[in-house]
């Protein structure tokens, strides 16, 4: 469960206050596949970052029960001066999982070969995101937080990541954030729509998409 206890978020910018999320009081289930729809700039990523803990709510508290992944599809979590091996060992240690097993699974997926012993800053963007994705798949989470694009890299990699991901996440929940209603329809059962600062809950994904298409889509 992710509890949003009277959470509110705004940014104070030079051009005035930008309200991203109005006061929200919801619990998001972590054992279901939840889609979050919103137009570009509606605050989807900020919401996901708040749930992960990178951004902090302006008011209210977020409580997390169960093990949440870091936002997938995001590869900034690596320390550039460390090798893939060292980065994986850090994450494995942090989440208290077996390093060797995690490393093998992540490496198998990421296909970075003998680059595993090079500092991550020398990697191409594709390698980095493959590694990030492989690593998050290698650890069993209760709920995967996913930002926008499932899988980076070339077409073959995308197909592969989709297959692996669906297989992996069959028994776990996920929170998928996207502006694309087709992605949401494909993966999610229930949905939230970020609209004008409101986080609107829908018990049926088609209702969410319907609302999104009618009210948010350009």
């Amino acid at each position, binding site marked *: 469960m992710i*509890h949003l206890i009277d959470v509110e978020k705004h940014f104070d910018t030079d051009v005035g206050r930008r309200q991203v999320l109005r006061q929200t009081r919801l619990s998001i*289930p972590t054992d279901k596949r939840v889609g979050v729809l919103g137009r570009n700039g509606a605050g989807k990523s900020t919401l996901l*970052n708040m749930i992960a*803990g990178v951004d902090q709510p302006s008011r209210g508290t977020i409580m997390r029960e169960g093990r949440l992944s870091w936002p997938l599809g995001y590869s900034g*979590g*690596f320390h550039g001066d460390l090798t893939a091996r060292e980065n994986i060992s850090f994450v494995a240690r942090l989440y208290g999982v077996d390093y060797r097993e995690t490393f093998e699974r992540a490496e198998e997926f990421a296909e970075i070969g003998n680059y595993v012993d090079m500092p991550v800053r020398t990697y191409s963007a594709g390698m980095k995101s493959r590694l990030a994705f492989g690593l998050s798949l290698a650890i069993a989470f209760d709920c995967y937080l996913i930002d926008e694009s499932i899988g980076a890299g070339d077409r073959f990699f995308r197909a592969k990541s989709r297959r692996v991901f669906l297989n992996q996440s069959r028994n776990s929940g996920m929170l998928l954030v996207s502006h694309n209603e087709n992605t949401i329809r494909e993966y999610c059962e*229930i949905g939230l729509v970020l609209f*004008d600062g409101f986080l609107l809950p829908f018990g049926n994904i088609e209702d969410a998409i319907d609302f999104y298409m009618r009210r948010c889509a350009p």
Partner: protein
Amino acid sequence: MSLSVVDHASFSAQAEEFSRAYAAGEEDEAVRIAIAALETDPAFAPPFESLWWLCGELLARRKHRLGLELTERVWKLGYNGWRALYLRGIFLALNREIEPAAEVLDSARKVAPANMQKEIALLEARLRAMAGQISTALELFREHLKFKKANARYIAAALQTARRAGDDDLAIRWCRRANKLIGETAPRMRLLAEIYFEREEWQKARNAAEAGTQIARKNKPLGRIAARAAYREDNGIQAINRLEAQLTKDKDWTEGKILLCRCLLVAGRDAEALRILKTIEAGSDCEVERRELAARLQGAGADVAPDMVPITDEGEPKPRRKKPGSGQDSEVKKIMSSIPVDFLPRWNEETLAARGNPFAAIMRMAHSVRTIMLRETMAKFGRHELGYLWAVLEPMMHVLVLSFIFYFIRLRDTLGMNVVLFVSTGVVPLFFYLKTYGGLTNALRQNRPLLNHSLVQPMDIFFARSVLEFFTQLFVFILFVSFIFVFVEKYTFGSALSVFANVFGLWITGIGAGLIIGSLASLADSIKNVMDGVNRLVYITSGVFFTLDRMPPQVAEYAAYNPLLHFVDGVRGNFSPLMGGSRVDIVYGYSWAVAILVLGLIADRALRRRVLDR
């Protein structure tokens, strides 16, 4: 001289009669004769000098068919000057033979004098446009159109042509030029408004249409475009006002009523929407929209007549575009007020209490801090070629340079204490402060990605960095003093606890200062530069060079305010019996250190969101 196109033929009796009447100035009679002759006598042809006059008369009397007959006749007789062709073209056009007319005019234009060419070309262009030869027509207009009052018809035709050719840019340009040079007209403004409307430039469309209605107040199409554009412009209240204004003049505009209803619904004015909706007759061309609106009103709790209930098998209602409402949106309100069971708030006292469990919190933090420390350690090895060696080399260089200076310049001031030992016990303790400060100011920003792991809290990052720095400096310190003891000089060592107490004080001052400056930097970056200057001063005044005891009393009085000086002197007191001295006040130092740490924690708490938001 009687010059005639037909002088080779014998004049018929009617022709002679016509000539006589014409010469006598009996114009009506002449025309009457000519008309009769044209209808009956295939050989009738008037004398040349009266030919153009007769054509003009026929034109004026709208005898278009006879005019054509006349021009055909003279053409067959071999006359094909530009004027004959021009007139023939005109009569062809008037007899609805558009394409031949255009062709004839084309040949007329080619032989006509320059001053006539434009006029002929414009007529030809208009005809070609009518005949559907859009691109040719457009070319002619482009080349020959002049924006003056006399050309009003041609301008209108040119605009239509440009529209049909799909060249809206050109149409807009011409509209603007015409408006500027010969004034605005309602049809032109309508055309302009329609173009803008099609391009979804609602504001421009609205402005054009409103300008048009200023000219023709009762022009319904113009008013409708203006109202539609206002609706598309998404100005809730403005759209409502405009639509209402139009509907008072234009009572059977069903589409307008539908649009008004939608606006009112978005604005939450359900009652008015219902009133408008009831004035729409069933079975109009907006039936689908009407029923859909009825359904929405019914959903919002309004009392809707049964014939308005939507027919579900009519298919999906059309998706519409609407401006996000601002808190008044009834649909949003409805969703917010009925949260589906999956999303109902599920926390209770127990969940909230679990968060306050100190044991669990400390365990989590210890785990996270230890892991981050390991990561930072590994990163330090990787970052520089020298890795951790740098942690030792940097203070070593400070010690060597300062020892060198002391050895030659200020030897006697160390009170017989070994110079290297004197410098080491000054510089390395101060590094507890300086390095910790430096490590913390940027800690959060540099390690922001770590926060993606929800196990990691900002405080963990501060903690990991500080602890790592403490042990690093402790290691360096022990290494230095041991080295000196073994290889340079055997000294008498005081209390390890006292040394620890003093470096600990320096360390927490460093943490506090790092937190304060790191947080304040989110308000103004330059504060870091100011603090760098302060730290340079700290380096000089904190006992690295001068101990409190050896300063002149007037100076010492002020220097003693520096809490770090007390800590550094306190450390040094354990390495030489002559150092330390009565003025050293560790309680004063700790008061400051704790105060700075508290301030640091407050600053972090107050500004952490700002630091992370940047």
